[in-house]
Each structure stands twice: as structure tokens, then as C-alpha cells.
């Protein structure tokens, strides 16, 4: 049996995983990344429009700060987020952008003087300040009060991932490509690494590590229509769930992006609307202002997606042979703007729709886009249930997005979480108390168990076909666990998914091809995906309220009184067909921003009994501190800086807020 030893095993080679590995490596620890694909092909590359960080360089970003970013993010989350984590995040995001700038990311830069932009369908001239010339640009995105998304044309994720991967190579971080973790090795209290399958040879190996970090991204492929890459199957999250000990949080919180091209579901960036693009219906009418007079096309994604589907239900969609859709019109931005700032969008339209978006409208409809839920961790990034197991990025629920993530906050989260968890994981490894005293017998047991499961897939007397089960699961999730949810449909989905899970235990792999054997890969993955799908559907069924992206037609109001809490799902019984759900309350009395109206979407919600008390307490506190600077006030409202690694504490300099 081949055993690889390392201090830090990072599962997943996207932005979050590689940044964790670089952080650990810089502190002198061995870090090894395993990745399903070459690291530069990770789904992080697909982020197009931008990375939120309150640099406040452009005119429309003036006055932006961590405070505004914090409030936007919490409102976006529909108060589901952990506010301390949001504070950690907004304070680190500018540092992340600036670190990446130093590492070579060719951020789009401010040009001083006049420029024409489109705001609310009107052509407007902005005059950028002389002193901003050459600093990093920001563009507008949904759900934000200020222009905050820093970007590299519309290839932001690509440029970031390349700079990050090249930095990992420079740091000597090995990336074991085409390797997949099938199980975490643990004893119920401590994680020791993972059983890993080589996707070239098919060989099973053990990776033994002091600390293991899951950074495998989202689980979009639980759905038929998704913007996610084909590798986003949630396997990293699933193997944490399969420990029976670690919990996954808020899996029912699934984001649908308003502008997946129709019908393929390929993403076109929110930057299209941020830069002034409009949504139009089958009659060419701009409908969003009718629903959302405040933010229009730039309300948060959950709200815009729901309004789009609502409009289609009224029969206002454009008809096509694949069903109804709506239009995204960016023709008003002009060819020069599209050629410079939306070039990936232009390519996607040309290759997949056969249109020129400077001349024609883009057929769009909401598509699954982001997994807010993930492996539950504390603000440090470590699982509270399984020592030595960490998670970062989309795979994690530490939990900065709550029930809806803002555009541009995910690519920012990957890097920020990588920076924070990278430092914390190095601290963890440096502490002698965390040395491991592991048994080779335990490692052998885990490898043999996984080998046994694979062997059983060949030998089973079953007749089930893995691809067919997968397709049924994806149809169920898209049709019954989508944007609009009802108790009846969710019950049907939970029931049908359980049956699929049982059937998946009788999958028969027919081909004995040596090497990775794609048929075998589908077989073992679909068993894991079904468990995650059940966490999503069952969590959605039990949560009898609407919050952020989770919308129940039979319970349309947000109910803080009963549901201001995070869903925690565990899977204690390997042969069971349902997760065990538990709930973790969010404490209003510790919130810096108590629940209220988001500024868009429904104004109707049921308050938590503590909300009024906390609000008046905060008002009194702010009143007593009149005259104090914003950092002192913030610290009095909700101290968080102690949660950050020392190197990441401290203020961020801006043009209008110089460091003294």
C-alpha cells in the first residue's frame, strides 16, 4: 500500500485550496494539493465579472469601506450569515486583492478623466479623479451600495487562478493532478488524511496528514441545469458528510444565477447587468423595475432569479423550442465596451448561441450557480466535530453567505478563506499538541474498506445503471428543489431521492477497463451525490420559511422567530437513507446588524423576539460613542479582530482614508 505523508493535505486545487497550501508552505510546512484536474483548470477559472473588495478607487465607489461591504453581505445573506465571519472577510478582501496584484494579476486599472457608462439605461459621464489613475478599477454588481467588484476584463477568475497556481509552483507546492479523495481517514474524533484514487492508473493510496483541508468547491452538478463545471459534484463535501461525524451546514441554500444562457446554462457574468445591461421579456419590455423599483436588475441574485421565473410564469417569457426564456440586452453598452470588458461573454455568445451580443439579445434563464452550504467549520476554518479537518471556499460553511451570496463575494471568499485558513492550519501544525499518533492499521482499514466498495460495484448482482440514476437525480433536483419550492414537491423529491439512493447500492459496473474507468467513477460518485442531494431536499422540506435563495411558496415569509438558525446535517448511519438534521441558532444579541428589510425583495417578515431589543441596545451604544472613529465604534458593537490571524489584522488604506 502506497502511503504519502505530508503536514497539510489540501483536497482541491482551485483558488481556495492553493492559497491554503501556499500559506502553510510559507510557514515552513509541507503542503500537498490533490486535484481532480490540473489546478489551472479548476472551476475558479470560470468566475468572470469580479471580486468584491472595498478599495474605493473609482468615483462610484467613493465612501465605500469594510462597513458598507459588511452590511451589503449580511443583507444579501438574508441574515443567515455569521456576522463575525463576514467582518473577518470584508477586512481581508482588500488585502487579498492587493496581494494578488503583487503576484501579477493584471487588474483592470482606472483611467483619469471622463468616461461614459450606462446607469439605469441612461448614458452618463463620470469623471475619474486624477489621483485614482492607475489604481484598481471597480464595477457595479448586484446587491451592493457601492461599485466594489475589482476585475480583470471578464476573465477575473482565470487571471486569479493563473497567478495563484504560478505562485504555488514558485513556492514548490506539489499538486497531484488527477487524484480524487474517496474517504477521509479518521477515528471519529481526529482526521488523519484521506484515501485517494489515482485517476490515471486507478490505484488507491493513503495520504496521511496532520491537517486535511477540503476545498473542492460546490455541488452544482446535483442539478441538471447549472453553470457549474462538470467536476463540481460536491464529492469533497460528501466525504466529510460520510464520516458520520462532521456536519454540513445549510445545504438547502442553493443559488440560481439570473443569467445562464438558455438552454445550455453556461454563465454570462453579472457584470453584464453591473455595466448597464437590461433584462427584457418576450415583448421586449424591461420588466425588473416593475418588480424591484429600488435595485431593478441589480437586486441580489435570489431576488432577480425569482422575479424572472415569476414573470415567465405570467406568460411573459420569449418562446423557443426548448421552452420559455428571457432576454439579456447588452447592446446598449456598445461594441467597444463589450470588446474590452465583456470579451468572454462575447465568445460564449458567438460559440454557443451563434449571436453577436453587440447586435442581438442573449437568451437567458436562471440556472443553478452556487452552493452556499458546505462543510461546517468555526471561523478558524476547522470542523468543530472532527479535529484536524478544515474547509475553505465554496465547499465550506463558515458561514459568510448565509442563504444568498452576493455576486463577486465568492471569488473574494476563496482567496480570503485561503489566506485565513492557511495561517490557521500552519498554527495548528506548529502546535505540538496536534502531532498525530496514528495507527497504520487504521489507514489500512480505510483503504481496504474503499477498495472493497469499488470491488463490490463490479461484483454486485445488481442491475442498476449509474448514469441513468444520476440523470434522474438531476431532473428531480431541477424540477422539484429549484427556485420555487413547495412542501408537496419537496416531499416527493425526498421520497424519490431515497429510492434512488437505495437503487444506487445495486449499481453494476460492467466495463473492466484498466485505469480510471469512467463508468466506475460515475458509479461511486453518484452514491455520494445522492446523499448531498438528500441533505438539500430534506433540509428544504423541513425549513418552513423563505430566506434568501430558499423560497417556499407555502411559507413565503422569512421567519426569524422560528428559523433564524443554521441547518446542520450529519449522516451517522452509512446504510441510512436520510441525514440527521440539527439546528444551530444565530444569536441576535451578538449581531452588529440585527435582522430587517434587505433593501430589495419582500418587505414582509416575522421578527425575532430579540431584534427590537438588540436594535435599541446598538442605537444606545452608538449614541454613547458619538465622535469616536468607525473602527472603535465597530469594535464596541461586535469585536471580531481576535478571530483573524495576527498578520491579517489592521486597517486597509484607501485614497480617502490614509494610514497614519
Amino acid at each position, binding site marked *: 500500500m502506497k502511503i504519502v505523508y505530508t503536514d497539510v493535505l489540501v483536497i482541491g486545487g482551485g483558488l481556495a485550496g492553493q492559497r491554503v497550501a501556499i500559506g502553510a508552505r510559507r510557514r515552513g510546512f509541507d503542503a500537498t494539493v490533490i486535484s481532480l484536474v490540473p489546478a489551472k*483548470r479548476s472551476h475558479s477559472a470560470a468566475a468572470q465579472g469580479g471580486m468584491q473588495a472595498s478599495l474605493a478607487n473609482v468615483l462610484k465607489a467613493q465612501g465605500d469601506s469594510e462597513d458598507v461591504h459588511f452590511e451589503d453581505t449580511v443583507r444579501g445573506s438574508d441574515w443567515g450569515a455569521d456576522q463575525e465571519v463576514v467582518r473577518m472577510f470584508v477586512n481581508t478582501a482588500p488585502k487579498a486583492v492587493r496581494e494578488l496584484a503583487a503576484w501579477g494579476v493584471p487588474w483592470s486599472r482606472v483611467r483619469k478623466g471622463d468616461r461614459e457608462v450606462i446607469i439605469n439605461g441612461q448614458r452618463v459621464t463620470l469623471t475619474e479623479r486624477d489621483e485614482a489613475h492607475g489604481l484598481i478599477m471597480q464595477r457595479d454588481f448586484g446587491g451592493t451600495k457601492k461599485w466594489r467588484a475589482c476585475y480583470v476584463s471578464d476573465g477575473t477568475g482565470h487571471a486569479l487562478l493563473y497567478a495563484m497556481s504560478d505562485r504555488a509552483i514558485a513556492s514548490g507546492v506539489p499538486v497531484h493532478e488527477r487524484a480524487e479523495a474517496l474517504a477521509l481517514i479518521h477515528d471519529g474524533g481526529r482526521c488523519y488524511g484521506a484515501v485517494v484514487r489515482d485517476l490515471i492508473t486507478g490505484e488507491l493510496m493513503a495520504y496521511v496528514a496532520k491537517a486535511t483541508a477540503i476545498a473542492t468547491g460546490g455541488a452544482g452538478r446535483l442539478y441538471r441545469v447549472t453553470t457549474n463545471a462538470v467536476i463540481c459534484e460536491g464529492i469533497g463535501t460528501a466525504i466529510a458528510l460520510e464520516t458520520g461525524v462532521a456536519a454540513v451546514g445549510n445545504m438547502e441554500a442553493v443559488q440560481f444565477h439570473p443569467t445562464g444562457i438558455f438552454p445550455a446554462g453556461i454563465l454570462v457574468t453579472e457584470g453584464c447587468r453591473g455595466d448597464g445591461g437590461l433584462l427584457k421579456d418576450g415583448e421586449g419590455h424591461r420588466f425588473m423595475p416593475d418588480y424591484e423599483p429600488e435595485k431593478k436588475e441589480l437586486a441580489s441574485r435570489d431576488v432577480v432569479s425569482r422575479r424572472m421565473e415569476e414573470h415567465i410564469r405570467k406568460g411573459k417569457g420569449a418562446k423557443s423550442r426548448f421552452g420559455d426564456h428571457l432576454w439579456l440586452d447588452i447592446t446598449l453598452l456598445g461594441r467597444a465596451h463589450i470588446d474590452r470588458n465583456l470579451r468572454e461573454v462575447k465568445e460564449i455568445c458567438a460559440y454557443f448561441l451563434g449571436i453577436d451580443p453587440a447586435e442581438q439579445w442573449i437568451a437567458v434563464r436562471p440556472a443553478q450557480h452556487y452552493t452556499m452550504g458546505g462543510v461546517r467549520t468555526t471561523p478558524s476554518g476547522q470542523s468543530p466535530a472532527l479535529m484536524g479537518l478544515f474547509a475553505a471556499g465554496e465547499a465550506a460553511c463558515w458561514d459568510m453567505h448565509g442563504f444568498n451570496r452576493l455576486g463577486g463575494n465568492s471569488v473574494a471568499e476563496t482567496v480570503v478563506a485561503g489566506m485565513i485558513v492557511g495561517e490557521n492550519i500552519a498554527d495548528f501544525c506548529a502546535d505540538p499538541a496536534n502531532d498525530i499518533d496514528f495507527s497504520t492499521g487504521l489507514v489500512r482499514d480505510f483503504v481496504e474498506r474503499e477498495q472493497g466498495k469499488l470491488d463490490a460495484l463490479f461484483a454486485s448482482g445488481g442491475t442498476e445503471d449509474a448514469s441513468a440514476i444520476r440523470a434522474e437525480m438531476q431532473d428531480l433536483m431541477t424540477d422539484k428543489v429549484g427556485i420555487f419550492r413547495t412542501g408537496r414537491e419537496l416531499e416527493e423529491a425526498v421520497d424519490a431521492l431515497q429510492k434512488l439512493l437505495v437503487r444506487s447500492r445495486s449499481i453494476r459496473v460492467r466495463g473492466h477497463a484498466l485505469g480510471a474507468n469512467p463508468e466506475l467513477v460515475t458509479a461511486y460518485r453518484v452514491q455520494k451525490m445522492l446523499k448531498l442531494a438528500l441533505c438539500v431536499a430534506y433540509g428544504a422540506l423541513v425549513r418552513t420559511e423563505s430566506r434568501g435563495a430558499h423560497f417556499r411558496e407555502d411559507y413565503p415569509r422569512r421567519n426569524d422567530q422560528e428559523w433564524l438558525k443554521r441547518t446542520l446535517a450529519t449522516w451517522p448511519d452509512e446504510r441510512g437513507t436520510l441525514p440527521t438534521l440539527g439546528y444551530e441558532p444565530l444569536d441576535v444579541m451578538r449581531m452588529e446588524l440585527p435582522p430587517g428589510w434587505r433593501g430589495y425583495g419582500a418587505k414582509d417578515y416575522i421578527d425575532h423576539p430579540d431584534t427590537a431589543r438588540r436594535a435599541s441596545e446598538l442605537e444606545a451604544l452608538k449614541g454613547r460613542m458619538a465622535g469616536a472613529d468607525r473602527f472603535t465604534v465597530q469594535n464596541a458593537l461586535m469585536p471580531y479582530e481576535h478571530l483573524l490571524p495576527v498578520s491579517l489584522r489592521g486597517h486597509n488604506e484607501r485614497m480617502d482614508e490614509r*494610514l497614519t
Partner: protein
Amino acid sequence: MSEPQTVAPNDHEPPRRLHINVLRFNPREAGTEPRVQTYEIEEAHGMTLFLALSEIREKQDPSLQFDFVCRAGICGSCAMVINGRPGLACRTLTTQFGSEITLAPLPVFELIGDLSVNTGKWMRAMSERLETWVHMNEAGVDLHKMEERMDPALAEEVYELDRCIECGCCVGACGTLRMRPGFVGAVGLNKIARFRLDPRDNRSDDDYYELVGDDEGVFGCMSLVGCQDVCPKNLPLATQIAFLRRKMLANGLKR
């Protein structure tokens, strides 16, 4: 603007039957020989090679190996030889061909099986060899302070070259690489051009000459321009190589 349109569908014509010929070989199966296997499928509206191959694997042959990740033309995983020309399979619509489509793995790269090749290994080795990262001053950067300024036009120029997705099409189309297996390829030379342009990288032309100032670098290129012809991102590869060659020649002559 004109009235919005959907993609022009030929609604009334019966769907075509496509014959997809795949060059197959699993090097892990001892005693087998490479062979061409033909799959027949019904063309669907908007069908890409990603959709066609996925359908074949799901419904006809679960052992068929290929690599797709983003299926949106941005990650570079799916480069293969499509009717004799390297390209990204995921964004290639079947409608642009006759009913016969022949697929082969990219040459040069290590074959994993069927249409899957190990571009990642080749690209990592290239990156290590050419040190494709910004070489910074030791002191590092104070993350609390404002970022260094950069000329907006220069940032755009750097991004233009940074758009490479390491798909390997240029490597597969390169005549020089057939003769010189150690040649760094257009992808490698483009990286050097990119970092040379970047003021944050403190390397000089002397340093770059050490990396690419020989026949396995910029002087090995025979200017066949195959790289630029097939680059799915339309990078100005031949122009960059010519420019770099001039700079490296000037550097070499002063030595």
C-alpha cells in the same frame, strides 16, 4: 437594433445521423493496439462535441475516455484533434461539419487513454522550467497599503497575453515540437513575453535569454504559424515570438 432572435433552427428537417470516429487506445491495457471506433448518434439542436461525447459515454460506451471541465471554452481541458485540426471540443458545434467527424487525442502530450492526454504534467514542467511567475523583490508587499499603480493600457496588454488557457492546441499544431521534443512551444514563449511586459517582474532580458535564448527556446521556432492559426483565444502568438526573438537576438549579440 434588430428584433431579438433565437439561433436559427432548422425545425422542419429530420435530425442528421452523425458518425463520430474516435481514435481509441488505452495504454494500460497490455497487448491492445490503437484503433478507430465509430459511434453513431442523432444530432440534437445546439449539439457540441461535449454533448455528443457525453451522450456516447452515457448511452453507448461507458469506457470512452475524454476530458471536459468547464464545457464553456474557458478552462482548456478538452483540446483534441477535430477533423485534423486542434481545437476545443466543448465549444465546437457539430453543425459545422458533415456527418463524419473524426476525433484524435492531441499529439506530443502523454496519452492517458482515448482522447485524454496529460496536458497538466507538460504545462507544469514548462512553468517550472521557464519560471512563469512574477519574480518579486524579497521584501514582499505590505498588504495594508494601497496597491502600486499600473498604467491602464499596459494592464490590458498584459491581460491580452495572460488569456492563454494552456489547452495545448499550439503544442499539438507545432511543427518544431515534432523535431525538437524539448521545445518550449508557443505557450511557453508567450508566457515569457507576458512576464517580460509586466513591470512587477524584476527579471531582465539577460535572465530571459538564459531561459529561452537557444534552439529549444525562441530560436527553435520555424515560424510555421500553426500555433496562432489554432489558438482558441486568438492570441498573437507568432507576433509575440517574432518580437521576443528580436529582443533575445539583440541580447545575444551584446554578450
